[in-house]
Each structure stands twice: as structure tokens, then as C-alpha cells.
């Protein structure tokens, strides 16, 4: 599958601060890729380089097979970009905003525009500056979906929105996702967990991992052992075990490359035959918390 977005050794420094450090990332076409990470991780910087708003200090980015440095003019006909802190022409009414954008896009779909206006319940006669934050985001999204973009880039689109508006936006976006690649950044795992097909975790400018959601969910397990006799944790544990702790006969850890047979074999090798083993699937939030606490940088596939 070809890539809609590709970052190669992307580095961005703001004077002495390194915002992105050798970022490498592929977003397959058709994916809904969520780039997550804490505030200040470098997500917005990566997106702004992608959209040719910032220039990278090193490396390069490609979007729909176009070098992001030359992303301008007609190349933007097939890309929709919405950001939480985008400055819209506040003086325009919603209708005028859509009217203004329409001639820029040869692929603008009037029917889709009407559908989006209806779906988002946009007040056409109100000025953008008079709209709530959620409504402004909806207007921006409507203005970025109505031309059937091949790529939708959303930078923290749901920040500070109430759940109802967020769900409406997600719904509107997902309805178009079938025909587009979606690249979305967020610091809130819960809001992307239900719809993202791929996820990447960025922390302090470095990508800790990037993979499909199903693979990620499959390879992380919370493991609880009950041993026959009290034991202490040995010095050397398998590299894929995270946050291991022992208390009397109970041992807990997180397996970051779960394979029932292999993991069971490794447990036996370290602790002997346990009395009981429990493997519990983890939520995305739990996985990321574990990753963040451990400071693990696992490459795709779980390789350390």
C-alpha cells in the first residue's frame, strides 16, 4: 500500500529547542492515522511541516507524493486541513465563508456542502466570530470536506469541545473517511481510540511507535501471575516486559509483545511453573500510560 504521508528523519529545531528529532513515519493511504502524545510532544510542528507552514531543519516530508516544501497552490486542492488554533476570516458569515472557498476548489461539491451544513447544523447567517468554538470547528471542517479531499489533516480538532459536538465532528469526518486518508493529532487518547486505524505515539519530538491499532491492542497484555512460593524479581527480565513488580507470590507486568505461547514460555523460564497466569487486554490509554511511565521506545512490531 502506498503512503499518503511520509516523514523521513524529520528534524525541527527552534533555536536551541529540538521540537522534532529524526521523525520517521508512514501513513498508508486510506488509513485514519492518529498521532498522539502529550502537549509539546511535537505533533503540531510535524503537521505544520507537512502542510508547508513550517520548514524542517532536516529530513523531509512527503504528502500525497509531493515534497511538503512545494505544497502550495493547486496541490492543496485535494487536502483538507483543520486546526484548533486556525485563524479563520472572523468577519465572514458562514455562508460567505463557504461561498468564498468554493471557487478555489474544482472538486467542490455543492450537494455535499449543503449536506454538511445540515449535518453540522451550521448557522449560515452568523459571522464566524460570533460562533462558539465548536461551531467554528464545524464550519472549518465543512469547508475542508466539501471538495472530497484525498487527505484530511486535523490538528487537535476536538480540544475543548463538548462531547456532543465532538461526536458530531467525528461522525462527519468518518463519513468522508472512506474516500480519504485522515491524519489526526490529539493528546486525548480516548477521543481517537474508537475510530483510528493506525496510531503513532510522539514524545519529546521522537516517535515511540507507530502501528495499526489492532496490532497494538493485540500485542499489549497486562499479565498477572500467582506463584507457588514467594519470589523476588530477577535482575534480568525479558526486554518486552514493562513495569514488572512482585509482592509475595503475586507478580504483575505488562507484556509489550504478546504471544501467548512465547510469553508463557518466558514466564516459566523466569519463575518456573506458576500456579495461575492471567492475560488481560489493555485499553489504549493504559498502553500509553505504561509506555509513558516506562519511557519505552518501541519500534513498529514491538522491537525495542
Amino acid at each position, binding site marked *: 500500500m502506498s503512503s499518503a504521508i511520509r516523514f523521513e528523519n524529520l528534524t525541527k529545531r527552534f533555536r536551541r529547542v529540538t521540537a522534532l528529532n529524526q521523525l520517521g513515519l508512514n501513513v498508508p493511504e486510506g488509513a485514519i492515522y492518529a498521532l498522539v502524545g502529550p502537549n509539546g510532544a511535537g505533533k503540531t510542528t510535524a503537521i*505544520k511541516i507537512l*502542510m*508547508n*507552514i*513550517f520548514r524542517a531543519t532536516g529530513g523531509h516530508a512527503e504528502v500525497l507524493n509531493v515534497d511538503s516544501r512545494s505544497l*502550495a*497552490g*493547486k*496541490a*492543496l*486542492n485535494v*487536502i483538507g*486541513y483543520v*486546526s484548533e*488554533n*486556525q*485563524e*479563520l*476570516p472572523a*468577519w465572514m458569515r458562514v455562508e*460567505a465563508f463557504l461561498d*468564498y*472557498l468554493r*471557487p*478555489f*476548489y474544482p472538486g467542490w461539491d455543492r450537494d455535499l456542502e449543503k449536506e454538511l451544513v445540515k449535518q453540522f447544523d451550521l448557522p449560515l447567517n452568523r459571522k464566524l466570530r460570533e460562533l462558539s468554538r465548536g461551531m467554528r470547528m464545524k464550519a*472549518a471542517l465543512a469547508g475542508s470536506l466539501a471538495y472530497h479531499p484525498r487527505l484530511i489533516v486535523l490538528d487537535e480538532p476536538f480540544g475543548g469541545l463538548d462531547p456532543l459536538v465532538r461526536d458530531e465532528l467525528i461522525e462527519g469526518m468518518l463519513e468522508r473517511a472512506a474516500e480519504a486518508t485522515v491524519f489526526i493529532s490529539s493528546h486525548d487518547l480516548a477521543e481517537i481510540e474508537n475510530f483510528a486505524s493506525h496510531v503513532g505515539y510522539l514524545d519529546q519530538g521522537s516517535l515511540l511507535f507507530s502501528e495499526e491499532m489492532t496490532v497494538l491492542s493485540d500485542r499489549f497484555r497486562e499479565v498477572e501471575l500467582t506463584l507457588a512460593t514467594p519470589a523476588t524479581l530477577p535482575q534480568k527480565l525479558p526486554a518486552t516486559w514493562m513495569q514488572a513488580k512482585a509482592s509475595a507470590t503475586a507478580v504483575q507486568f505488562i507484556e509489550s509483545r504478546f504471544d501467548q505461547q512465547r510469553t508463557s514460555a518466558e514466564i516459566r523460564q523466569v519463575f518456573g511453573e506458576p500456579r495461575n497466569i492471567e492475560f488481560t487486554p489493555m485499553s489504549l490509554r493504559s498502553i500509553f500510560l505504561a509506555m509513558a511511565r516506562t519511557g519505552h521506545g518501541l519500534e513498529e512490531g514491538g522491537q525495542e
Partner: protein
Amino acid sequence: MSQIIHIFCKDVRHHWIEILLCQAALVAYCWNVVRQWSNFFPDALSTVIPLVLPLTWCFFILRMVQDESLVGDRQFWVTRPYQWKNLLAAKILLILVFLNLPIFVAGAILLAKAGFSPAPHVLGLLWMQLLLFALPFVPLLALSAVTRSVTQGFLTLLTLFVLMIGITVIPLLFSRRIAHFSGLYGVSWSAPTGFNDVGDLLFVLPCLVAIGLQYSQRKTAQSRLWLVGGVLAAVTISLASAYAKGNQDPYPHPERSTIQFHVALDPVNLTPPKRPVEPDESVPVGLPLSASGVPANSLGWVRGIRVVLEAPDGYRWDGRWASNQLLVPGDNRWRAMFEMDYDDYQRLKPVPLKARVTVSADIFREHGFETITTTAGEFAVPGVGRCRMWRRGQGMLYCNSPLVRPGMVVVRLDPASSTCPAEDLRPPAVPPKPLEGLPYAWQPARDSRLPQGGVSPVATSFFPFWAFTDRVSICPGTPLDFTFPEFIENVRRDFEIDNFHLDDYRQADYSSEGIKSASGIRLGLPPLR
């Protein structure tokens, strides 16, 4: 093209108030120009209106450029399929349509109002628009492109304004070419005006680069550097040029001179004022000079006089080039005025000095005689334009010309031909001094045949008659003789005065009694033959 029009229409919808403000300010400006044709005395309105017009330009350009701000990373439009060339073209179109075009039309209306058909002057009007576009619209466009907000733009403009005042004033320290008011009207202000031609170019070119760079790549830091570099280059060139001009000889010896022109110190009785000079006071000094050799039917325009004083200890005072004087045929005597700092004066006063005096003059032959009889209203003067009297019964004429001032013009008035009624001729407070010849007014030759940039294409010239203070009166029906002297050649004379005692030449003030004949009677112009 459609994108250009699309952005243009959006900006018109958004900025109609700014556009209206510009047009209102332009109307007010034109109204003020027309008003001042008949009322020269400045009032509050005539001071404020010319300031308001450029402010509305700044406001409009800043606002409409920053509608698609090029500074920052949050603007919605940067991720939309704008073509940068189209965006820039739309902004330029706005300037052309809402600034240049109305000014062009206003210029044509002003020409028509002044009594000139605009049709023959269309090229001149277009040239004025080109100049106006280059300066100030291009720099304003560049400034708007590298600033984030109107406030930031205006603060930058304020800084530049202070800087420009600085570079206008600082060159005066190097060049004291301020023409002292020497008693004759028609004196031109020759202080540097800030930017010279090279400076202008060096200012506009980086602006164009910054605009191109900013619109094509949004490289704000680099664009700002270009602008700062342009300003610094222009300032440097301006200062260096002013310094060089202050030190070089602006009126070199002509290659050949056929006219036997002579200038010498006039041996008159000197009567310096008794009042002592106060500390820190500038000291007026008048050098009585006598010139001869201006051929019949000719005039001499003294463009510059330079006096250098040398003390026995080697101390040297250089008065630089000053003065502006019209010499008529015959033996002319006048007092060339200059000023000295108090400290220089005190230092040089006690010792005998050597004075080196240089006089450079252009000689003109009177040509193109035209007798025009004044009327109560406006009357046409071929070669000048349309003229009016400055209030009934007073000795000043003012004329409007299309695009540029006329070249050198001399106007004679024969008091015997005055048609002023007796009730207009109130007895003067001071009895008129005797005058040999006819009272006259004149205007020096212009520097350029091309119109200057600006809004009004109507150039106004004033012709105050030589014996202005003696109430030479013009009334409807008074005939005036116009001539349009032609340049013949430049002459220059250098001479030295030994044993020059500065204190003998000190004057009470800068007033002058005008040029005199050898008999001490003030000289007017000989009647036309």
C-alpha cells in the same frame, strides 16, 4: 485571473470602509488644494488634511494585505489553494483601482479645475501614478507583508518617520546649503530632502525583493532583513551623498566662458550693529559684493556663493554654498548673507582674515516676450499656465501650471501702468525707496522637466514683485511683461580678500535691501525694448 478577481471582490466587500475613507480623504485633499489656490495662508485644515490622506493609504494597505497575513502560522488561507502570484496581483489591483485610479482621476479633475485640459497631460499623470506606486505604495505593501498587525505596521512606520526626520536633519550638519533669505523672493530651499535618487532606488528595490520573497515563500525573517538592509543602504547613501555634496564643489569652473562676468567686494561704508553678540547666538554676516558684466537683455542667476575664511593660525571656516540672487544688466551691488556659529565668530573676530569668495552664476538671455493684461479673475499666460492676482491691489501673482512649474520666468511691472484706483493705494507706512528700472518678479529654472510624484498635478508658482514691501500694486487691467529667459552659459569667479575683519561685516539681521546700482539706488529690470 478568476482567482485574482475573486480575492479582489472579497477584499472590496471586507474593506469598503477603508476604501471609502481613502476616497473621502482624497476628496478633502483636492478640496484643500483648490481652496489653497485662493488662500495660501495655512490653517488647521490645510495642515491636517495632507497628513490624513497618507494615513488612510497606510491603513488601507495594511488592512487589505493583512487580510491574508503573511506573518505567522495560523492563517487559514495558507493551507488553501491560493496561487501566490494571484494573491499578490489581487492586492496590487486593489491599490491600482482604489488608490492610483482615483488619484489619477482626481489629478485630471484638478487640472480641469485649474483650467487645463487633462487630455494632453495623460502621460504626465500616468508618470505621477508610477512614482506614487513606487513610493510610497510599494514600500507600504512590503511593510504590510512583513508585519502581523495594523498596530505593528503603524509602529514601524512611526519608527521610520523618526528615522527619516533624522536623516533629513543630520545631512544639514554636513551641508549648510540652506539658501538664506537674501531679500529677493524666489529663493529656493536647497536643503537635502532625505532620499536622493539612488537612495530612492535602494529603498524600493529591497521592498520589491521582500514582497516577492514573502509572497512566494513567506520567509518573514529574510524579508524583514531585506527591508532593514534597504533602509540602512538608503540612509547610508543619503548621508554619504549629503556629506560628499557638502565637501565637493557643486558649481565647478565652466569649461569655457565667453561672458566677462566680474564680482568683487563692494567698497561701501560698513556700519556693523553696536549691539554685542549674545553667547550661543548665530551671527549674521553680510558681504557687500558688486557684480558686473551681465550682458544687455540678459540676467544672471547667482546659484551659489561660497565664503571661506582663513585665520593666520591656519584655522579655516567654510560657509559652504549659500545664497540665491538675480543679477540684472549693469553694475549690481548686493549683500551676500551667511551665518556663523557664535564660537567661530568669537574665534575669528579678533584677527585679520583671508576671505576666499567664489560666485557661480547661470546667465540667461531674455526671450519670449509676452505682455499680458491682468483681469479680475483668472487669466492665461502662455508658457506658464493660468494666473491670478494675490488679492486686489497687492503686488503678488500666483500661477498654476500643469504637471511642472514653468522654467525660468521673469515678470516686469511698470508702476506707471498700474490701473489700481486711488482708494486702493493707501499711503505706505514707510516711504518707497528709489528704484531704477522696473519692479519685477522671477522664478528660478526648474531642476526637472518630469513631474514629481504626488497627488496634485497642478504646480503653483508665486511671483512676488521685487518691491513687494514698497506696495507695487496690480489691479485688473494692469499689464505685465513676461519673459522666459534661455540659458546661455555658466560663469564662475573666485577672488580673495586680504585683511578681512569679520566684525566689520556683522549684520543686525538677515534682511537685505536688494541689489543696488553704483549710485546706491536699488535696481529693477530695464524695460523691455
